[in-house]
Structures are given as C-alpha cells and as structure tokens.
C-alpha cells in the first residue's frame, strides 16, 4: 500500500513516518512531498492509496490540494494531519471529501485508531 505524506516541515514528515511505524503500519511504501504542488507531481507519477496532508503549506495548501484532486477526478483516501483543528476547518475538510483530521500533536494510538480504518497492509 502506498501512502503520501505532504508537509512543508521535514521534521514533521519524519515524525509522521515514525508514528506510522509505531502504530504498527510497517509495510507501507511511503512517498513524500513538501507542498501541494509537489504532491500533485508525485500523484501524477505514482498515485498513492492514502494521502496524509498538512493544511497550511506554501504554494498550495492541503485543502487546495484536495480540491485539485477532486477536479482532476482522483478518488484517493485523503486525511489532514494539522496543528489547526477548528470546527470551521473540520467542516471545510469534510465538505471537500477528507475522511479524517488528526490534530498535532498526535500519538501512535491516534494513528492506529484513525488510520486502521483505511490502511490495509
């Protein structure tokens, strides 16, 4: 199963990868991108099965990435991993088709519970 991690922070991408392993997801092929535009390039070449994206990023935000994927007709499971989790943002995320929103800081247990519904190793 291929998973794409999108975050402008290299540190956070590494933490997400590590937390995936700690949550017991050890057999994933992990792709990475530093913003929404970079993510689109990766997706065009190698469509992943699941996308974990930050919300606030330079060039193209996570929400703009999700909207672009919708316009291009992709049907990839998409979730946000973000420092911001207001009710307004949760509403926008759900309206755009995001399956979940994980708030930073997160734990391996949160990943296991939330992503367990979508990751099929």
């Amino acid at each position, binding site marked *: 199963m291929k998973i794409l991690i999108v975050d402008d922070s290299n*540190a956070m991408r590494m933490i997400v990868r590590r937390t995936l392993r700690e949550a017991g997801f050890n057999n994933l092929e992990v792709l990475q991108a530093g913003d929404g535009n970079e993510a689109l390039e990766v997706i065009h070449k190698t469509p992943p099965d699941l996308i974990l994206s930050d919300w606030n990023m330079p060039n193209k935000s996570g929400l703009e990435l999700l909207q672009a994927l919708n316009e291009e007709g992709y049907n990839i499971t998409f979730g946000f991993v973000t420092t*911001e989790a207001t009710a307004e943002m949760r509403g926008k995320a759900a309206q755009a088709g995001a399956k979940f929103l994980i708030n930073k800081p997160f*734990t391996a247990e949160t990943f296991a519970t939330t992503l367990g519904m979508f990751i099929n190793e």
Partner: protein
Amino acid sequence: MLPIAPVQNAITLSADALFELAESIWHSLLEMEVQRIDHWSADLPEDGMLTGCVYLDGDWRGSVTLICPKPLARQTAAAMFKATPAAMTETEVQDAIGELTHMLGGNLKSLLPTPCHLSPPAVVEGYTIPKKGRIVEQILLRCENQPLQIILFEREKLL
C-alpha cells in the same frame, strides 16, 4: 479543553493552561519532560538563543513566541529526528523550533474566535520579541536543565 474564554477581542488564557499545552506537545512529540519554574538564575548558554514566532490574525490579533537556547534547540531537533544533537543541521534545528511554535499557535487558534489566520512559523537568531503589543501570558520552563520561554502577545486590532 483549555480554560480559555475569548470575550469580544480579548483573550484570557491562564499560565496553567499554557503549561498544559506545552507539556502535552513536548511529551507526546519529543518524549521530553518540561517543568514549570518561576525564574532562571543560572547563566544562559553562551551559544545564544533562537526565537520561534507565529502570528494569529482575526478577531483576536497576537503572536506566540517560543524562546530557546541553541543547545536545547539542537537537543529538541535531535529528539524530533531521532538522531544525535551533533548530527543536526542548522536547517533541521530551525525546522524543529518552527514546528513546535506552529503547533503551539495552532492549538491556541482552535480556542480563538473565527475567522482566524495562523501564519507560518518564523525562526530567528537571538532573544527576539515583538516590538508592539502587550504580554497576555508567559511561562518559563526547564527542559534538559535549560530554560525555555513561551510568551503570548496581543496586538492592537486594526481599524
């Protein structure tokens, strides 16, 4: 939920609540413990300080500032990247401090009136605090036997 009660354009956030938030982030993300202290009497590290800052802009305007000695910033980055402090580059150290500052700001944002925009983090050299605004709350912490300061500033609302 943090005991915060936004009233019109004001923000009320207790130091206890700010500490709980910091403690949660440092523990869950870095597996590092922080203790709240009243003052820091020892000398500061000679290597200098780093300051991380994010701005919140909406019905409430202000900023969250994280001030950290460079050796602690390097240890923090090492904990984040699961590497040794010596292996950390300056970019990785700044990335780590920026991410922690952004996380503090993001969690505070969820307690503020909407709409509210959270800026990307900026990390600068030295002990650098906003020139304008008033301190709403601040806490001093000890981490790895070094001081760490978090300050919440409120800025005047633009007319």
